[in-house]
């Protein structure tokens, strides 16, 4: 147990055991899959037409927004090149599905149906359509286990979108709450501020939305303000998630697969940024 906790030597043993229990997991997932298949096969023509129309409209809307976004992206890149910054927009993604398997109720973990056969690696960021969900913890050939950002042992480096104030969002064990324990009383943070990943720590790519600040309590008796935030991703509802590969970008490449050892000099001092401490 100590070996598993302190070092990562037993990952291969865990992978072996997980392959043995994989049939059990897929068996349990079967009713859900069958239900989905039945729903899809017996959808009525009208329903499909309605869906199609709705999606068409949505597609048009997003396309229009994307046009503007592309122009902005190129402009942004050009400006960053002028500044000699190593920042890239655009990541490779893979859609994975959650398997309907219950894990330990006191840990926020999910099982995905993609594994090392699809090049999933340990510590890979996981997002859904609304924001960051978590990162992978164990990878086996067919499945992988991911830890959600609300797990008490998880922390994600964030910054306030409005002014770039950096901090760390730590899971609380409640599905609708993250806490930001290292914000000074004098910091400029308000209810409703959007928190995005800062990219420090090298685990999560920069710029993905994480949470919205819900309460800010400033108590002059304490060194730090008590700030809590609500995760944007639908942690308990999403069934399809995206696994993200960040393209190699100069300085960040070497840090990527490693547990975080050297955050950038300006980062707030925190021992376990983006690192799972099981």
């Amino acid at each position, binding site marked *: 147990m100590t070996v598993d906790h302190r070092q990562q030597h037993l990952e291969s043993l865990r992978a072996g*055991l997980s392959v043995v229990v994989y049939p059990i997991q897929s068996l349990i997932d079967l009713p859900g899959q069958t239900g989905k298949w039945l729903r899809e096969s017996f959808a009525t023509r009208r329903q499909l037409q309605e869906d199609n129309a709705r999606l068409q409209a949505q597609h048009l809307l997003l396309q229009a927004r994307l046009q503007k976004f592309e122009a902005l992206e190129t402009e942004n890149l050009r400006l960053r090149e002028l500044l000699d910054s190593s920042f890239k927009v655009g990541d490779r993604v893979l859609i994975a599905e959650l398997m309907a398997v*219950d894990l330990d*109720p006191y840990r926020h973990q999910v099982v995905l149906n993609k594994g090392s056969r699809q090049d999933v690696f340990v510590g890979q960021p996981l997002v859904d359509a609304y924001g960051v969900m978590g990162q992978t913890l164990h990878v086996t050939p067919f499945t992988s286990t991911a830890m959600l950002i609300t797990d008490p042992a998880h922390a994600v480096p964030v910054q306030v979108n409005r002014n770039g104030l950096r901090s760390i969002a730590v899971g609380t064990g409640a599905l609708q709450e993250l806490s930001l324990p290292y914000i000074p009383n004098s910091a400029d943070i308000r209810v409703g501020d959007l928190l995005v990943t800062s990219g420090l720590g090298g685990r999560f790519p920069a710029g993905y939305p994480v949470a919205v600040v819900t309460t800010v309590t400033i108590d002059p008796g304490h060194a730090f303000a008590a700030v809590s935030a609500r995760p944007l991703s639908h942690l308990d509802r999403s069934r399809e998630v995206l696994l993200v590969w960040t393209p190699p970008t100069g300085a960040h490449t070497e840090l990527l697969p490693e547990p975080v050892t050297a955050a950038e000099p300006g980062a707030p001092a925190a021992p376990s940024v983006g690192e799972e401490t099981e």
Partner: protein
Amino acid sequence: MSTLIRHHGGAIIIFTFVVALILTVVPLPNELRMLRPDWVLLVLIYWCMALPQRVGVGIGWLLGLFTDALTGTLLGQHALAYSLVAFLTLKLHQRLRLYPLWQQALSMLVLLALGQLLILWVNGIVGRPIHSWLYWMPSLIGALLWPVVFLLLRGLRRTFRVI
């Protein structure tokens, strides 16, 4: 003569363990997840009691490892708890067999809670303390379910003549 027909019906034992593992991870509504009894431990205790010469600490340890891999917990924490409970059951099996069902269920409460206590300790040591009285409900529910599990598994054992 009796030595020749030993070890019969191993498939049934494995089958019950697989069913128990499946029940451990079957999705439940969020409110009920905390209350799920430890099926694997219940089945393990039954077989330790009924066939102490076949099922024991080693099998408990192996099952624990599978449970750890299945539920994503620290590798070895269920293995530790299951082997200890299997050991105690082996020590007590002759006494347990003589008890009436309700008294057996009381003993199960102690054994299951002991297993959970070990898991709680390990969780506390690795920095995941659990502050909820609900944590102990699975033991209680497991003990309440014991008569059902016992009669079911005994029926299976007698039908298929597992020795």
